[in-house]
Each structure stands twice: as structure tokens, then as C-alpha cells.
């Protein structure tokens, strides 16, 4: 009873305060209500009737002036910014649809920005989670992509140069013991990795110099595993330390687990297992540490305290001649050796780690970053327009507030609070969208052979970025309505009685300007989306020169199989025959390389009767294939013949070349009958006779022009290739190649059960080669469509508003005999002016800006006219729809109704 009384008095106090445009804190309302309730109760106690008692209390309330009370709020918390937020919330919930549209577009806009930024952050900005990452530097391996073990040895011998040095190489290790492979992401590393990075184990120990010796130290082969792998494979058990792990058929002892945040020196990769470099020859018997032309290691150093990279480079350069001299690759031609001696050893800062992904994705990511910023700007323009419309509706309220003594600053503050609140809610949802979106994107980056890992945890940069974006966004769309509010005169709107006269027109011009901006930005985004989509389509539908559907690639590894090296090719050939005999298999062929696999093999060549070429133009890519290869790949024979079973050891060595080869080396002449050999010519090497020419086929990258390619016969084995791994290409008769995996595995196992097998459909390999283009196209397409939608909505809103303002005018025109078609034309002429202006500006900016994405495009010019015209047409169509709907409504106005209303 008492509580109900108190509640009633509270709401009466609040209502009374509202009438005076005063804001009271909750505590003050409570206390005043308490007073009135006491007054009421006292009067009753003194014998007054309830009605009478209530009147006494009400009179007291009505006689009170709240002026002093609210001027000096007791608690600043009560009516300070918290109060603004409550008022803003009330405003936002009062117009739920407008607010929902605004929040949704902000969530998408801010979310997309945060998602892309967190990728940029983890790929390029975030420093490695190790001790003093600023002191790390990497030995730039521009020429060969990596360093040899002898070079590492020479550097380690001069350990006084740095505070630490280590080398590593990423490698997938097979956990299975023969049969179908089960890969983990692993790495070789020298023992210096842990000390140099300053990272210790979570459990157990890391490996030391004593472990990092050839063939393993006192504990035999040892491995350090990642925290994730420890959890996944051992369930985080402490007794994982000391257990055996089979890698490539060799048992390793797990000696330590790294802490959870550690992923190694490579950004974009994560290792599950690290083994000492000293185990190289145990796992890869065909390798030796002395090999001076086996480029496989990345080298990182820790600079001495206070040492700059330049100082370290000077120190390194002074020792360079000795290091180069001591590691000269044997068998290299003199011209290459001279270059080898000259090439400078250069350290580059590596606080943010090493990353092959960075080079590939930096530009695409920055492009998408620009795209999402533009989307956010379009969303801002839309929301500004929505709020402007609402601002016009609220002018009446504001002028009353001003007349009652509210300051202009207070109004502006209230409106900005509203904008900030909208933006913050949008950002909150956007943040969740971003977490999910960035993880989805990273998952898209991974391919079957390359797992991409990026640390996407939220750090201060991401938080600062999102907060900054939120505030800037709020200012962008909140300033126009706030400016409008500051211009309201006290009581002016009351006199107007809500009629939108002059102010409506100025709102319309501001809104129109915003629409022009939106259209222009949308044109830029649509052009970008069209360029990237067309690039992707061109690459995806590119004639690769072979038929990649229904081909299964099986990589057979004889590393762990007890087969004498000389016998391997014979075993592979028997496996091929066994698979070829399977039902459902159309053909099967061996090849040393498969297209777009990331592997390649090439030589410089000399062709008999060929044109004179510079050394740099003599390179051709090579492949070694068995009979049936061109049939399996569906590669066209242009002239001569392909390999047959007669091309075997002992028969004259033959080669098949492609058309690009004939063009480069023979000026397009028929190559049949010419011979080729490696350049510089070695006396002991027999030339290969060209017996056939096949059509051009993609080899290394889809974007590259097809390189001159020479195929030699696997059965002749005239090249001293490592035969430890070979590919079997299987064309199925009809079924999907993946369905054949089981029977192919069984057939190969029947020949040799120790061969390790990795399966992948050729089409997957091609699709993996298009990862970057696909992601850029999908993102640009998605955001282009979003931009179109937002621009369409903006245009629709502004046109509708213009039509509603001109209702009377249109009614009069129609009463005077204007035809509905004329009215539609009247409305559309304005829309087409706005769209036309926006398209012109947008097209101008696009044709200037497209030069920055030229390297991401394929098969079309950045200023591709068809794309520009097409995008303009799309915008025009969207504009036409957005304008036509309100125009049609205008043409249906009943003049009689309008004239009566006015």
C-alpha cells in the first residue's frame, strides 16, 4: 500500500518536473515523493478525508518551483551524461525502425572495418609474442627465397656479431606409418630458436645444442610440440613428455610443450611439432648438410642491445666476402658464381615476424580496407539523412526546450549522445560480426596443403581502432542533425506549428548532397567489385590447356619404404599400371611435377638451330612424365608424337615441348627434329630430340603467361632427379575423382604397402591457386552490393521526402490538368540529376583510383571502359527504381484530397 503510494507520488513529481523541463535525479524524486507521502499521511492522521489530504499534498507540489532543484543537482551522476544516455535511449526506442536500420548498417559497416583491420593488424602490425621483438632481424633471402646450411654454419661461426641466431624451415610431417598420410604443420629449427626468441617451454624442456646434432643427441630424436597439439593429441596430459611420436616413420621423443600464445617466427603459420635441424638427413636421407645449393632455411638474429639494423648490416657486410667464398655452390656456372659472390647479405627488421602471406595479402587487404571504409561512409550518409529527417520532425520539441531555458549546447550534447549511442550499439554488434567474420576469412585463406593461422585475439590496436571508428562515425552522421538543432530559434517552430517551410528546403539540399556523395562512393565500390569479379571469372574460366575435372593427383612418397633408389621408378610404374587397370579409371600417368602445385623445376637450355637468346631468356620449365600423361590431362598434341612405352632406358632420349617453347626458342618454327640440352652445355650430357609439340598449359601460376615447357620421359630417367616422391595422375571414367581414393590406395598398397600417399583432386589444386582472387572478389562483390542497397535506400528516402513536401504543389499541378506521366517525369528529373552527378563524380574518382589495384587484376585494364559503363548503368537502374516508387506514388495523388487538406 505504502509502496504503491510512493510510486504514485514519484510519478507525479516526475511529471511535474517534466512540465518545467527540469531533470531530477532518481534520489531527488524519491525524497520529494517521500515528503509528499508524509504530508498526505499526516493530513489523514489529523482527520482529513483522503481526497482532501491528497489535494493538500498536490497543492504543495504544484506550488513548488523546481528551478533551484534541478540547477543544482545533488548527484552529478544522476542528471549528467547518464541522464543524456537515458533520454537518447528513449528517443531511439521511440522510432524503432529508423534506429534498427541505422544500427544494422553501422553493425555491418563497423564490423567489416574491424574484421579487416584485425586481419591487417595480425598480419602486419602485431609484433611477435616474444622477448624484445624490436631487436629481431631476418636475413633477407631475396635471390633464392632461403639460405643453405653451409651459409648458416658460417654465420654461426661468427656468433660475436649478434646476441643470438637461429634458422628454421616449415615442413609438414607425416604422422602415419605408411599408407594414407596424416600431416601436421611442423618446422625444423636450430636449437638457438628458443633462446634467441626468449621463449621457454610450458611443460618439459626445449631442445638444446646437444640435441641438435646430426642423427640426434643423447636422448635420440627429440621434438617440441605446440600447446594446441598437446591438447588435441594428448588431451593436455603431463605424461605426454617422454612419449613417442612418429614423424615420417622416425620415432621422436616429445621433450617439451610450448606456451599457448607461441606460434613461432612465421606470421600466418603455426607449428604443431618442432624438430632439430640436425634431424634433416635422418628424415630426408637424400639430403646432406654440406649441400651448397639446397636453399631451405630462413635465418633470424637477435641484435645486440643498442645495435641498429644498419650497424649490424655494416658488420655483416665486412665479413660477407669470406662467408660467400666459403659457401660457393659447386657445379654452378661461372656467371652464377660471380653473382653469388656479389649478392649482399642484408638484415631487415623482423619485430613483426616473417611472413610469406604478408607479401601476398598486404595489397588485397588494404584494397578491401578502403572498400569497407567507403561502405561505412555510405552508411554514415544514410544515417545522417535518416536523422536529418527526424531532426525536422523534432524542431518543434527543440524550440520549446530552448524557450524554457535549455541551452543550445545542451541540445547539441543530447543529439550527439544519441549519435554516439547509435554508433556504440552498432559497434558492439559489429564487434561480434568482426570476430566471426575475420575467423571466417582466415579459414578461407587455408588450403589443403597450407593451413593459415593468424592470431586474431583482440589487442589494444583493434580496440583503439573500433573505438576510434565508432566516435568518428558518430561525428560524421551526428554533426549535421546537431548543427540543425543548434540553429533552431526559441519558439520559432511553435509559431510555425510544425509546418516545414524554409527549413525543409535547406534540409533537402543537404540531403541531396549526401545522396550525391553516396552515389559517387557506390560507383567506386561497384567498379571495384566488377573489376575483381571479372578478374576472378577470367582466371577461373581460363583455358589452362588441360582438362582438370575428374583428375585425382596421388603423391607417392618412398621416403620410408625400403626400396633401393634405383628401383623406385619401377615401383611407381607398377603402381601406375595397377591403378590404370582399376574399373572406373580412364587413364593413369606419372609426373614429377603437377600444375599449380607450388613446385616447379626448370633449366636454361640450348636448342639446335634455335634463335640466339640472352642467358635470362633461355629458361624453360621442365617436367618428367610417363606415357599416357597428355591423355590423362587431355593436353592437345599439336604435331609429332607423345611418349610411348618404347621410350625407355637405352632408347634415344626424347622430349616433347609446348608451343610457347617453339615460339621462344625457334621463333615459332616446327620444333620436331631439333635437339635440346642444358645450358651451359656439359660434355657428358646427351641431347634430347624433340619428337612432339603439345598445346600450351598452365604450369606454375594461373596469372603467368604459359612458360616454355619441356617434357621428358620418366621411363628414360635421363635427368638426375630425386625420385623419392612422384605423382600419379588418375583420370576417372565418369565418377568424381574423390570417390576413387579408397580403391586407388588399395591398388597402390598391393604393389608396395610402405608408400606414403597423399590424395587431392586436381580441381582443388586449381581452386587453391585462386584463393586470393576468390576472397577479394567475394568481399568486393558483397560490399559492392551492400553499397548499392544503401545508396538505393538513401535515394528512395530523399525522393519520398521531396515528394511529400511537394504534395500540395503536385496536387495543384494535377488539378490544373498535369498528366500522371508528367508528374513522374517531374520527380524523376530530379532523381536523375542527383544520380547523374554522383555517377560522374564516382566514375572520375574510380578511373583515377583503379591504377592502385592494377596488380590485382587479370586480363583487363584498370580503366576498363565496359566496367565503368556497366557500373554506371547499374547505378542508374538502382536510381531509377529508387526514384520511380515515390514518383508513381506522387502521380496517384488525388488533387481533391490535397487541396482540401491544405
Amino acid at each position: 500500500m505504502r509502496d504503491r503510494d510512493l510510486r504514485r507520488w514519484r510519478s507525479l513529481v516526475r511529471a511535474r518536473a517534466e512540465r518545467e523541463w527540469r531533470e531530477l535525479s532518481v534520489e531527488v524524486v524519491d525524497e520529494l515523493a517521500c515528503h509528499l507521502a508524509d504530508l498526505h499521511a499526516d493530513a489523514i492522521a489529523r482527520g482529513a478525508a483522503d481526497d482532501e489530504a491528497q489535494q493538500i499534498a498536490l497543492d504543495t507540489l504544484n506550488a513548488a518551483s523546481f528551478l533551484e532543484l534541478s540547477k543544482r543537482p545533488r548527484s552529478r551522476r544522476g542528471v549528467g551524461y547518464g541522464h543524456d544516455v537515458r533520454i537518447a535511449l528513449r528517443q531511439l526506442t521511440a522510432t524503432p525502425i529508423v534506429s534498427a536500420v541505422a544500427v544494422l548498417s553501422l553493425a555491418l559497416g563497423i564490423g567489416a572495418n574491424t574484421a579487416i583491420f584485425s586481419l591487417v593488424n595480425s598480419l602486419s602490425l602485431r609484433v611477435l609474442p616474444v622477448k624484445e621483438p624490436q631487436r629481431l632481424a631476418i636475413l633477407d633471402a631475396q635471390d633464392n627465397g632461403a639460405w643453405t646450411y653451409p651459409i648458416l654454419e658460417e654465420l654461426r661461426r661468427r656468433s660475436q656479431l649478434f646476441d643470438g641466431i637461429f634458422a628454421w624451415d616449415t615442413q609438414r610431417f607425416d604422422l602415419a606409418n605408411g599408407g594414407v598420410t596424416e600431416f601436421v604443420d611442423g618446422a625444423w629449427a636450430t636449437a638457438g630458436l628458443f633462446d634467441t626468441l626468449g621463449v621457454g617451454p610450458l611443460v618439459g624442456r626445449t631442445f638444446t645444442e646437444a640435441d641438435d646434432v646430426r642423427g640426434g643427441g643423447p636422448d635420440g630424436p627429440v621434438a617440441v610440440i605446440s600447446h594446441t597439439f598437446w591438447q588435441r593429441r594428448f588431451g593436455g596430459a603431463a605424461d605426454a613428455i617422454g612419449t613417442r611420436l612418429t614423424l615420417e616413420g622416425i620415432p621422436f621423443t616429445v621433450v617439451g610443450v610450448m606456451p599457448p600464445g607461441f606460434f613461432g617466427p612465421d606470421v600466418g603459420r603455426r607449428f604443431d611439432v618442432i624438430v632439430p635441424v640436425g634431424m634433416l638427413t635422418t628424415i630426408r636421407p637424400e639430403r646432406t648438410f654440406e649441400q651448397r645449393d639446397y636453399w631451405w632455411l630462413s635465418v633470424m638474429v637477435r641484435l645486440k642491445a643498442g645495435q641498429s639494423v644498419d650497424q649490424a648490416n655494416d658488420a655483416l657486410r665486412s665479413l660477407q666476402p669470406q662467408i660467400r667464398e666459403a659457401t660457393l655452390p659447386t657445379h654452378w656456372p661461372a656467371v652464377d658464381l660471380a653473382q653469388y659472390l656479389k649478392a649482399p647479405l642484408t638484415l631487415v627488421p623482423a619485430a613483426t615476424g616473417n611472413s610469406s602471406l604478408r607479401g601476398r595479402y598486404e595489397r588485397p587487404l588494404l584494397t578491401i580496407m578502403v572498400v569497407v571504409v567507403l561502405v561505412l561512409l555510405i552508411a554514415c550518409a544514410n544515417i545522417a539523412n535518416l536523422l536529418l529527417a527526424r531532426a525536422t520532425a523534432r524542431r518543434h520539441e527543440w524550440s520549446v526546450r530552448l524557450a524554457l531555458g535549455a541551452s543550445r549546447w545542451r541540445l547539441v550534447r543530447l543529439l550527439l549522445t544519441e549519435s554516439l549511442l547509435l554508433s556504440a550499439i552498432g559497434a558492439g554488434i559489429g564487434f561480434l560480426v568482426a570476430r566471426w567474420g575475420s575467423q571466417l576469412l582466415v579459414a578461407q585463406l587455408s588450403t589443403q596443403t597450407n593451413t593459415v593461422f593468424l592470431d586474431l585475439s583482440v589487442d589494444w590496436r583493434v580496440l583503439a581502432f573500433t573505438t576510434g571508428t565508432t566516435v568518428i562515425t558518430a561525428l560524421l552522421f551526428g554533426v549535421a542533425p546537431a548543427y540543425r538543432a543548434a540553429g533552431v530559434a526559441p519558439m520559432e517552430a511553435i509559431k510555425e506549428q510544425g509546418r516545414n517551410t524554409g527549413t525543409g528546403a535547406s534540409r533537402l539540399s543537404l540531403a541531396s548532397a549526401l545522396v550525391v556523395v553516396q552515389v559517387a562512393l557506390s560507383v567506386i565500390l561497384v567498379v571495384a567489385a566488377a573489376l575483381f569479379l571479372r578478374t576472378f571469372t577470367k582466371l577461373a574460366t581460363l583455358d589452362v590447356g588441360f582438362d582438370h575435372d575428374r583428375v585425382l593427383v596421388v603423391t607417392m612418397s618412398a621416403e620410408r619404404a625400403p626400396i633401393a633408389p634405383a628401383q623406385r621408378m619401377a615401383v611407381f610404374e607398377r603402381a601406375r599400371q595397377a591403378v590404370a587397370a582399376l574399373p572406373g579409371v580412364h587413364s593413369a600417368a606419372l609426373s614429377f611435377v603437377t600444375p599449380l602445385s607450388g613446385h616447379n623445376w626448370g633449366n636454361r637450355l640450348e636448342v639446335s638451330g634455335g634463335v640466339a637468346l640472352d642467358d635470362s631468356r633461355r629458361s624453360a620449365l621442365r617436367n618428367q612424365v610417363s606415357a599416357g600423361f597428355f591423355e590423362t590431362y587431355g593436353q592437345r598434341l599439336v604435331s609429332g608424337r607423345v611418349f610411348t612405352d618404347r621410350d625407355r632406358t637405352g632408347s634415344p632420349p626424347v622430349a616433347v615441348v609446348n608451343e610457347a617453347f617453339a615460339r621462344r626458342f625457334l621463333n615459332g618454327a616446327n620444333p620436331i627434329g631439333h635437339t635440346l640440352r642444358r645450358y651451359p652445355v656439359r660434355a657428358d650430357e646427351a641431347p634430347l630430340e624433340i619428337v612432339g609439340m603439345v598445346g600450351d598449359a598452365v604450369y606454375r601460376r594461373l596469372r603467368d603467361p604459359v612458360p616454355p615447357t619441356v617434357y621428358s620421359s620418366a621411363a628414360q630417367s635421363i635427368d638426375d632427379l630425386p625420385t623419392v616422391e612422384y605423382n600419379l595422375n588418375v583420370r576417372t571414367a565418369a565418377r568424381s575423382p574423390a570417390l576413387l581414393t579408397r580403391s586407388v590406395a588399395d591398388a597402390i598398397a598391393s604393389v608396395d604397402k610402405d608408400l606414403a600417399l597423399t590424395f587431392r583432386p586436381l580441381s582443388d589444386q586449381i581452386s587453391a591457386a585462386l584463393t586470393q582472387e576468390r576472397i577479394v572478389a567475394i568481399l568486393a562483390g558483397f560490399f559492392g552490393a551492400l553499397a548499392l542497397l544503401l545508396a538505393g535506400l538513401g535515394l528512395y528516402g530523399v525522393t519520398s521526402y521531396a515528394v511529400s513536401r511537394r504534395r500540395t504543389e503536385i496536387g495543384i499541378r494535377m488539378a490544373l490538368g498535369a498528366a500522371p506521366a508528367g508528374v513522374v517525369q517531374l520527380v524523376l528529373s530530379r532523381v536523375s540529376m542527383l544520380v547523374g552527378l554522383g555517377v560522374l563524380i564516382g566514375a572520375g574518382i574510380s578511373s583515377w583510383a583503379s591504377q592502385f589495384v592494377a596488380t590485382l587484376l587479370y586480363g583487363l585494364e584498370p580503366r576498363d571502359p565496359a566496367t565503368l559503363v556497366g557500373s554506371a548503368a547499374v547505378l542508374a537502374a538502382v536510381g531509377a527504381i529508387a526514384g520511380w516508387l515515390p514518383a508513381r506514388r506522387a502521380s496517384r495523388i488525388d488533387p481533391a484530397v490535397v487541396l482540401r487538406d491544405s
Partner: protein
Amino acid sequence: MEFAGAIREAKKGAAELVVLAFLDDEPRHGYELAQLIEERSGGALTFNFASLYATLYKLEERKWIQGRWVEKAGQRRRRYYKITDEGREVLAAQRKEWRLFFELIRDLAGVRYA
């Protein structure tokens, strides 16, 4: 005009003095204060309900009194105000000033009407 302003200021000062004086004995809530002032002045002095609280908040802001929500058995929750040490000092000083002022007025009046 100036005269009316002076009286208003004097009244404001007097209101603060009265509130502080009533709180000097014991902590009281707003309603109780209003009743007391009306009773003791025989109805001659009444506070507008809002200005009583405005005065209380002002005194609290100056840290001369301190308010606290108290819930007593069988009663509703009320905000009780207690005078602070600083408030007591101010009260003593104001009492002295007012006494001097009254004496001065009386003396001046004595000179004029003697």
C-alpha cells in the same frame, strides 16, 4: 529594488541558519524539518517545499550537512540529514554574525528613536 534584493539575500541566509540550527540537536529528515520550522515559528515562517530541499542540497554540497538514507522499523525509508563539524563551525559563526547584526540594528534603532 536593491532593498528587496537585500531582504531576499537575508532571507536566504536566514533559511540556511534555521536549517543548520535545527539539525544541531539531532539528525532529521526533510519533512520533519518543514514541520518543525512551521510549528516553532507559529506558522510565520514556511518554506516552499522545493526550496527547502534546494537549501538542504546546497548545504550538503558545501559539506556543512550530510544526508543518508535510513530505514527505521515500521517506517518508510527516509533521508536523514546530520550536521558536520564544518557545519557546526559555520553555524557558530553565523549565530555570532546575526547577533552582532541584531545588536547593531537595535543600537541604531535606539539612537534614532531615543
